[in-house]
C-alpha cells in the first residue's frame, strides 16, 4: 500500500477530528435510550436509509404517504416525551410536519415551531435548517432567510442535493445566481450525473442568460431512464431561450405525447406559446394541467398576456393567498414583466412576504 497523498491525509485528519467530536457529544442517558426505540421506528417509516446520494428527481418530488407521516410523527412525539432534550427527534419531527403540510396546511406552523425547538438545542442541525429554509422559501417568501438556513444545512450535509436545489432557487430570487452557481459546481464535480443538481444549475444559467450553458446542460442530461423527459424539457427550454420556437414546440409535444401530465412540460409549453403570441394555445396548455398543477400564477401570466388585466390580477391574488410555490420562480421570468409593472401586483407580493424579494424582481 502506498503512502497517502497530502490531500487524502488532510481530509483524513479532518474526518478523524469530526468523528472524535461526534463521539464526545454523544448522549447516553437512560431517557435517551428509551427515546431511541420510537425514534428508530419513525425513521424506518420515513424511509430514512435510502441512498441519499442516488436520489432521483422523481423520488425527491413524490409526496410521502400521509399515513406514514402521521405514524412517524406520533412516534417522534413519543420519543420527545421520553426525552425532551433530544434535538435529532425534534428535527425529524419538524421534517415530518413539513411534509405533512403538503396535505394539511395547518401543519406549517407546527413544522416551524418544531424546527425552532431543534435549532435552539443544535443550531447547526441539517434537518431543522432544511425545514426552516423550506418554510422561509415557500411560506414566508423570505428568501434571504431561506438562503441562510439552507447554507447552514449544506454546511453539515454538503452532498444533500435537495438543499442545494432549494438554495439555488432562493439565490435566484435574491439576484445572486452567479454566487450560487460557483458553489453548486463544486458539488457537481463529484456528482456530475446528478439530475437534481443539473436542474438547479440549469435554473441558475437561465437567470444569468447563459444560453450556451443552458443548451449544454440540457444536452448532457441522460438520454434514457426516468430523467430523459426532464432533459428533453430542458432542451426545449434552451431552444425557447434561443428563439427557436418551432423546435421547442415540437420537443414539448413529443414529451407530452408520452406523458400528457408532465407538469414541467405543460408549464414551459404555456410560456413558449406566450412568447409565440399563441395565447389561446397557452391558455389551453394551462387548462390541460392537473388541478394541483394548474398553478394560479401561470394562469395569471397567460391572462396578463391576453390583456385581461383584472382577471390576471385576480389570479395573482389567488397565487399569493394560496402560496403558489411557482410564484417566486415566475417572478424571475421575462413573462412576469407585464404583471411586475402592475402596482397592485408588487404591493400584494410585498405585503405577503417577510422580505427578501430581489430588488431586480419587483
Amino acid at each position, binding site marked *: 500500500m502506498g503512502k497517502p*497523498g497530502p490531500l487524502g491525509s488532510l481530509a483524513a485528519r479532518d474526518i478523524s477530528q469530526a468523528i472524535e467530536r461526534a463521539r464526545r457529544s454523544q448522549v447516553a442517558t437512560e431517557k435517551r435510550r428509551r427515546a431511541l426505540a420510537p425514534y428508530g421506528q419513525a425513521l424506518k417509516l420515513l424511509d430514512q436509509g435510502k441512498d441519499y446520494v442516488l436520489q432521483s428527481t422523481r423520488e425527491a418530488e413524490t409526496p410521502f404517504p400521509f399515513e406514514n407521516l402521521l405514524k412517524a410523527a406520533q412516534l417522534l412525539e413519543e420519543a420527545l416525551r421520553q426525552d425532551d432534550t433530544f434535538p435529532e427527534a425534534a428535527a425529524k419531527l419538524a421534517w415530518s410536519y413539513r411534509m405533512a403540510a403538503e396535505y394539511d396546511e395547518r401543519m406549517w406552523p407546527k413544522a416551524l415551531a418544531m424546527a425552532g425547538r431543534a435549532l435552539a438545542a443544535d443550531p447547526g442541525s441539517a434537518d431543522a435548517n432544511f425545514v426552516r429554509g423550506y418554510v422561509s422559501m415557500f411560506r414566508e417568501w423570505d428568501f434571504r432567510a431561506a438562503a441562510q438556513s439552507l447554507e447552514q444545512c449544506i454546511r453539515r450535509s454538503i452532498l444533500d442535493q435537495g438543499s442545494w436545489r432549494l438554495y439555488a432557487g432562493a439565490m435566484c430570487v435574491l439576484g445572486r445566481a452567479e454566487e450560487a452557481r460557483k458553489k453548486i459546481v463544486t458539488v457537481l464535480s463529484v456528482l456530475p450525473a446528478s439530475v437534481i443538481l443539473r436542474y438547479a444549475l440549469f435554473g441558475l444559467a437561465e437567470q444569468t442568460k447563459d444560453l450556451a450553458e443552458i443548451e449544454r446542460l440540457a444536452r448532457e442530461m441522460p438520454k434514457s431512464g426516468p430523467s430523459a423527459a426532464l432533459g428533453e424539457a430542458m432542451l426545449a427550454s434552451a431552444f425557447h431561450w434561443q428563439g427557436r420556437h418551432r423546435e421547442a414546440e415540437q420537443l414539448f409535444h413529443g414529451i407530452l405525447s408520452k406523458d400528457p401530465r408532465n407538469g414541467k412540460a405543460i408549464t414551459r409549453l404555456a410560456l413558449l406559446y406566450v412568447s409565440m403570441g399563441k395565447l389561446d394555445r397557452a391558455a389551453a396548455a394551462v387548462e390541460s394541467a392537473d388541478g394541483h398543477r394548474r398553478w394560479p400564477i401561470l394562469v395569471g401570466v397567460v391572462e396578463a398576456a391576453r390583456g385581461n388585466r383584472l382577471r390576471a390580477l385576480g389570479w395573482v391574488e389567488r397565487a399569493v393567498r394560496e402560496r403558489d410555490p411557482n410564484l417566486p420562480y415566475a417572478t424571475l421570468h421575462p413573462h412576469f414583466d407585464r404583471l411586475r409593472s402592475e402596482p397592485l401586483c408588487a404591493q400584494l407580493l410585498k405585503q405577503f412576504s417577510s422580505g427578501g424579494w430581489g430588488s431586480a424582481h419587483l
Partner: protein
Amino acid sequence: MARFVEPESAELGVGAISRRKWVIAAGATVAVTGGALMVTSRRPAKALAILNTAEAAPRGGGGPEAEALSRSLANALGLEGIESRPLAEVRTLGSRAAGSFYYVNALAGRCWEDGTRVRLMAELREASGELALWSGSWDGEGGKAGAARQPGCTRHLPGH
C-alpha cells in the same frame, strides 16, 4: 470477493481498535467500502468509510486522479481492505453495532471548473439516525492527489 478489514492503527486518533475481519460478498451495485472502526463512549465506536468516485462525465466526475484521491484517503484513514458494497449494507452493519455507528461518505472527482484539479467531498453521518453530523471539501492538484491508481477501489455512481 472483496475484503473488508478493520484498520490496525489508531491513526484516526480515537483509541484501540479490534482487528476482527469482516468478509462480505460484494454487492451487485458497485459500491466500494473501506472500513475503519472507531470509539463509542465506553468502547471503540465504529465508522465505515464509503469511498465514491463519480462516473466519467464531460465535466467533473471520475478518472484516474479521482481514483487516486480516494485511495489516498483510504490509506490515510488506515483502511487496509476495500470492497464493493452498497450503502444499504453499510447501514445494516451499523444497525447491528452496539452504540452509535458512524459512516463517512466520501466522493472524489475532477473539478467541474478545472479538470486538472481534483476535489474530495465527505459527509460524516450517524448511521442509525441517518443524521448528518459534519461535512467537508478539499481541493488539490490532480497529479499530487495521492497513491497510484488501484482500479475498483471506489464506488462508481451510476447516472441518476
